[in-house]
Each structure stands twice: as structure tokens, then as C-alpha cells.
């Protein structure tokens, strides 16, 4: 047995390797990025597993399905909003008779540290009628990932691991077990079990519904622990909430009854036994009131159920030891009083020398006094929404900038501009651009091409800048209104003139502003110098 110090994300990755992982796929997104990064580094050193970034979460999931169809073990990793993109194959795959274990790791971001929403993946797992495991620390992240592969193969469903930011980016000690080898290739024999034609799908759906009993029987015995103690209060903890409960439990005047949930479908029997034993239930869960809603339902529950929905805990934000302390009725510990000085906030901002700064200056210059509407997308350039630029009007989800600018133009708004990064464009911007090209919509798309997925640390984009022009022409962009421009403080003036002309064009224009991310350019320079030093 070996000990490692790992982030929650890394513990998942190592658990997957030791479970005999053949291939892993993902699209970078905080707080999930380190899972695939770890696997890529592992593959560079050990020659396996196959680990790669994909164009988006849907393509990642579909590749993983192929690995499972081959009978081998596969992992797909994403952040919570990424599961929206992969939702189509994910929900459908629960109906299939999965062969090789398929584990979906989704890192939720309660409190929205670096995300546009704080949705709770437990609802998706429930929606797909599949298993979900929720670790509370790095050790459980390792153990549960290994177990998830076995469960996926035993029940023939995709197994979800739900992480939250606080676990994904928390470092702890992990004791590892013996590594298992990969599955031999064993492609599925039954085509009907993998083909969702309505006639097959109806049968497969019935099969999945029948398996619900087995799934529930499993989670009533495994992954969840009930300890009946004092009958005044029953505390339900889910995943990482247990840590905050344990942090405070010693200060309680009595030992409450406690159900810890680390595996779903909901362990209904255990919840019933707890509720029957206590006067009141307090549900501690990070994210949405998932368990609390199931407990309370529409009818008045036989017992008082407290949680995020009743105000016992704040309805939003991530859990902390302090909000849990208050929910348990304990007084907060006093720290130093806050400083008398007013403290300005320090929002994130574009790095000094970032090429996006020049792109925004170009846009601001070209659109001055035009009353233009500018839609933005998800990436570093979203920071163009903040001062000193205040250059964009919207940011909703990956790819939405282009579709929304089309809607603005269709609604009669002129000029309508969309700003999108190269990686986001490839992820979800291509299809709305196809719509805009087909309709020759009077709008201008600005692709800020820095060659990488910069916000998450510089993972490679699916295609290099040099191929962007051919791609756009292939999609049908008009070559007379397609410009590939170097972006630089020196070119702002000239680029703004070109952009201004294209804004006046009564059809679709695409402008690509190109310069490598300042951070990755710096890293590459450092690497070159180190290599030169090593060979000198």
C-alpha cells in the first residue's frame, strides 16, 4: 500500500488508472481540469491510459461510449455545466446495456467560484435513473472511483461521481490499493442493446426501470451509513457536508442520530428509519436541496425537515463549517472584528499584455457611437465585461454568443457583434455560425484566437490557428468578408478600420484576431531557454 498527497481531482484520476482504465476524455473546465491533466501526464510517463482533451463534453462522452462498447473501462470528466452539453448522450446511455465500465466524473461548483451557475449534478443522475457516488475526501474520491467502474459493469449503467469545488481542489493523503489490469477487448455482442430505435429503446427503458430495485437495494446497504442515537435531532449529511458536521459535532450537547449519504439513488429505507426515530431532521448538502426535497415532498412530512429550503442553511453559496455550525444551533466563534478600512474588491482581470485587450480595444474603437450590441462567450475574454472595458452585453453559455447575436440581428438590432474564443468556437460556436451563414445574417462575429483554452491553464485548442481560415471557408463563410488579423497594440487602429467596414456590411462577416496567449507564449519561451541551457 502506498501513500500519496493528491487533490480530489487527482485522486479520482489515480483511482481510475488503478481500476484498469483504457481511455479517458474531457473538456477542460474549473474545477474538473486536473483530472484529465493528471491522466495525460500519467500516460506520458507510463504509456497508458489513452487520455485526451476533446472538442467538447458531448464528443468526450460519445468517445467514452465507444470504449465501453468495446468492453473496456473508460472515464469522462467535465464540470457541471459541461454535463448540459453532454446531456444527450449521457441520458440516453443509461438505457444501453453498457459493457466496459463507464464513469462520468462531474465537478460541481456550489458558490460559483468560477462558473456561470451552480447546478447540482445529483439531479442529472436521478433524471438518467442511474447511480451517483459522492465522495467526502480525497481517499473516498480514490476508492469510490474504483468502485464506480465495478458498479457500472455490474448494473450496466454509467456511474456518476459527483465532486464539488471544495473537494476537487482540496489536497489530502490517499492510500492506494493494488492496481488492476485493463479489460481485454470484448465488443458487445447484442446490437439491439446499443441501438436506441424506439422499439428497442422501449424495451431497454423497461429494463432500466426494473434495475432501479437493484440500484436502490445496493445503496441501502452500501455507501451510506446510519447511526441512530439521540431522538431529538437527525442529521443527514451528503458528501463533503459530513466534514463540516464533524467539525462542529463535538460542541453539541448531545449526539444526534446521523445518516451519511455517499451513494444515490436515495437510500429510502435508511431515510425512513431515521425519520421514524427522530423529532426533526436537518439536511446538510452542498448545492441544491436535493435530499431535502425528496424528504419533504409536497405532502406535509411527518417530521420537521430543515435545510436549505427552510432557511436553516442559506439557499445559495457553498457550505462552510460556519453555516453548518449555525444550522446546528451553535454560536459562531468570534474572530477579530473586520477592519475599519473599506476594502475594495479585487476582481479577476486580463493579464498584462493579453491579446484580448487589443481585441477589445479594437471593438471599442470600431463601435464607438454606434450603439452596438456585443454578445460574449465563456473564457478569459468574458473579463471584457468588467471595467475598464465594459465591452459586452451578455454571456450565457458556451457558444451562445453567436446564436444570440443572430437573434439580436433577426430582431432588428444593428450592429450586432459576437465575441468568442477559438476553443469555445470549436466547442459550441460552429453550429450557430452555420445558422448565421445559411441566413447571411447581418452581424459580425469576432473570434479571439489565442491558440489555447487559456482560462483553465492553457490546454491545446482542437485545431491550431493556422487551420481556422480553412475551417471557416469550409463552413461557407464569404471569403470577401472573412479577415484573419494579427492583434497587437500596434494593429488596433488598422484592425478597427477593417472591423468598422465589416460592421457596415449588410450580411455576415467573420473577423479572427490572432495572437498566442501571453501565458502560454511565456511558458514556451521558458521551456526553450531551459532546453537551450540543457544542451549548452
Amino acid at each position: 500500500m502506498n501513500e500519496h498527497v493528491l487533490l480530489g481531482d487527482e485522486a479520482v484520476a489515480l483511482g481510475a488508472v488503478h481500476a484498469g482504465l483504457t481511455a479517458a476524455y474531457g473538456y477542460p473546465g474549473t474545477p474538473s481540469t486536473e483530472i484529465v491533466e493528471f491522466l495525460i501526464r500519467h500516460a506520458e510517463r507510463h504509456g497508458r491510459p489513452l487520455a485526451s482533451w476533446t472538442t467538447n463534453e458531448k464528443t468526450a462522452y460519445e468517445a467514452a461510449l465507444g470504449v465501453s462498447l468495446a468492453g473496456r473501462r473508460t472515464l469522462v470528466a467535465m464540470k457541471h455545466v459541461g454535463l448540459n452539453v453532454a446531456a444527450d448522450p449521457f441520458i440516453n446511455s443509461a438505457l444501453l446495456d453498457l459493457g466496459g465500465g463507464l464513469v462520468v466524473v462531474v465537478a460541481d461548483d456550489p458558490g460559483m467560484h468560477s462558473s456561470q451557475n451552480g447546478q447540482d449534478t445529483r439531479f442529472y443522475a436521478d433524471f438518467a435513473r442511474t447511480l451517483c457516488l459522492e465522495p467526502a475526501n480525497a481517499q473516498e474520491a480514490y476508492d469510490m472511483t474504483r468502485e464506480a467502474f465495478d458498479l457500472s459493469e455490474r448494473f450496466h449503467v454509467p456511474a456518476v461521481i459527483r465532486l464539488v469545488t471544495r473537494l476537487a481542489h482540496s489536497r489530502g493523503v490517499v492510500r492506494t490499493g493494488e492496481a488492476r489490469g485493463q479489460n481485454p477487448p470484448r465488443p458487445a455482442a447484442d446490437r439491439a442493446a446499443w441501438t436506441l430505435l424506439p422499439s428497442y429503446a422501449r424495451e431497454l427503458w423497461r429494463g432500466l426501470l426494473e434495475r432501479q430495485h437493484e440500484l436502490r437495494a445496493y445503496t441501502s446497504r452500501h455507501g451510506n451509513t446510519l447511526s441512530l442515537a439521540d431522538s431529538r435531532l437527525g442529521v443527514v449529511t451528503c458528501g463533503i457536508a459530513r466534514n463540516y458536521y464533524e467539525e462542529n459535532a463535538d460542541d453539541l450537547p448531545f449526539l444526534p442520530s446521523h445518516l451519511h449519504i455517499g451513494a444515490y439513488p436515495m437510500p429510502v429505507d435508511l431515510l425512513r428509519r431515521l425519520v421514524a426515530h427522530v423529532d426533526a431532521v436537518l439536511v446538510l448538502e452542498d448545492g441544491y436541496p436535493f435530499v431535502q426535497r425528496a424528504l419533504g415532498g409536497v405532502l406535509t412530512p411527518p417530521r420537521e425537515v430543515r435545510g436549505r429550503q427552510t432557511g436553516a442553511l442559506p439557499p445559495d453559496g457553498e457550505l462552510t463549517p460556519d453555516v453548518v455550525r449555525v444550522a446546528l444551533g451553535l454560536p459562531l466563534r468570534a474572530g477579530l472584528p473586520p477592519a475599519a478600512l473599506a476594502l475594495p474588491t479585487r476582481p479577476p482581470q486580463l493579464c498584462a499584455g493579453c491579446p484580448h485587450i487589443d481585441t477589445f480595444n479594437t471593438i471599442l474603437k470600431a463601435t464607438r457611437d454606434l450603439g452596438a450590441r456585443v454578445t460574449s462567450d465563456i473564457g478569459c475574454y468574458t473579463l471584457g465585461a468588467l471595467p475598464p472595458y465594459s465591452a459586452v452585453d451578455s454571456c450565457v453559455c458556451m457558444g451562445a454568443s453567436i446564436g444570440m447575436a443572430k437573434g439580436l440581428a433577426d430582431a432588428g438590432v444593428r450592429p450586432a457583434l459576437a465575441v468568442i474564443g477559438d476553443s469555445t468556437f470549436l466547442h459550441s460556436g460552429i453550429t450557430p455560425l452555420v445558422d448565421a451563414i445559411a441566413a447571411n445574417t447581418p452581424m459580425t462575429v469576432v473570434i479571439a484566437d489565442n491558440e489555447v483554452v487559456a482560462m483553465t491553464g492553457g490546454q491545446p485548442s482542437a485545431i491550431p490557428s493556422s487551420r481556422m481560415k480553412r475551417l471557416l471557408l469550409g463552413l461557407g463563410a464569404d471569403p470577401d468578408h472573412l479577415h484573419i488579423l494579427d492583434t497587437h497594440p500596434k494593429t488596433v487602429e488598422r484592425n478597427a478600420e477593417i472591423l468598422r467596414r465589416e460592421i457596415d456590411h449588410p450580411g455576415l462577416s467573420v473577423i479572427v484576431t490572432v495572437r498566442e496567449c501571453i501565458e502560454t507564449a511565456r511558458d514556451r519561451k521558458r521551456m526553450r531557454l531551459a532546453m537551450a541551457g540543457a544542451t549548452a
Partner: protein
Amino acid sequence: MKYDIILAGVGGQGVLSLSGIIAAAAMQEGLSVKQSEVHGMSQRGGAVLANLRMAGRPVASDLVPLGCASLILSMEPLERLRYLRYLSPSGALVTSTEPVRNIDDYPELERVLETIRSLPRAVLVDGERLARKAGSARAANMPLVGAASALLPLKLDTLERCIAARFASKGQAVVDTNMKAFHAGREAAA
């Protein structure tokens, strides 16, 4: 034994590597450690916060509760003031005096420093100046570890070993610079 640290700074200052060195030292001394970090968007020049907890028994919460921190360690004077409510009344503060003025409304530095000086058990170190004297401004987080070292429940040679291990791959010169900066901070705080 239980020792909680709040580490604060601005993205890019090396808050996480500072946290990593102390965490590694704590683990080498057989303590239970939990270290929680902020990644992603928050790192782009924004405020960065890390929680580091060490104890003689298993650590439950990944986050430091209010009023429980034994130490606030800050790479930037303004950033440390954000987290005073986390500091135990008997806790100490160690901060670098060099401001990061990447916001328009940064308060007058002297007022920030005065506010800090008025707090009990505050230690101010000019991390960047000491690091430059030691050989490289890039080691600006080392004087902070040095200044905190006498407060931490960790042995000096364990910390030294962890600093050496951290920079070993970059060559002996880098190790020496960082070690020098560490000791400069330790002396400045004495």
C-alpha cells in the same frame, strides 16, 4: 495540536506554492493536513485564498472556521485585511508590505499598513526587497515563510528540507536563493 492558516494574496503571487511548502513540512512531521485552494478564474489577478489546516488528529473540514485561524499569511497587505474574522483572538498575522495595485480604488498604502500595525501580533515584512537582496524578486514568497517559521508548530530543518525539495529540479542556485530569502525573512521577523 491544531493549527489553521489562512493564506491570502493576488493571483500569480505564489500563494499556492507557499501553502504547498508548509503543508509538505507538516506532513513530514506526521501531522494530518488538509489544504484547500482556489483555481481558475479567481487566479487571473484576482484575490486568491488558500486554507491550510494541520492537526495531531484527523482534520474534518477543508475550510478554516471563523475565529479559528492561528495565522493569516498574506502576500499582499490589503488582502490580509479581508480575512480578519477568521483569525483567532490569539492568532498572529504575517504580511508582505508590498502592495499589488491592479485596482483603481486601492486605499492609501500607509492607511492599510497602519490598520495592520494596530492589530495584535502583526508582523510586516518587505518580502520583495528581501528576496531581491537574496538574489531574485521571484522568491518574494520565501521571506513570508521565513517570517512565519518561528510561529509555525514545525521544526526549522523540516521547513528547510521542504524548501530545498521544492526547488531541487531548478538547480542549486535557485535553491540557495530561496533559502537565503527564507532566512532573511526569519531574521527580519525575529
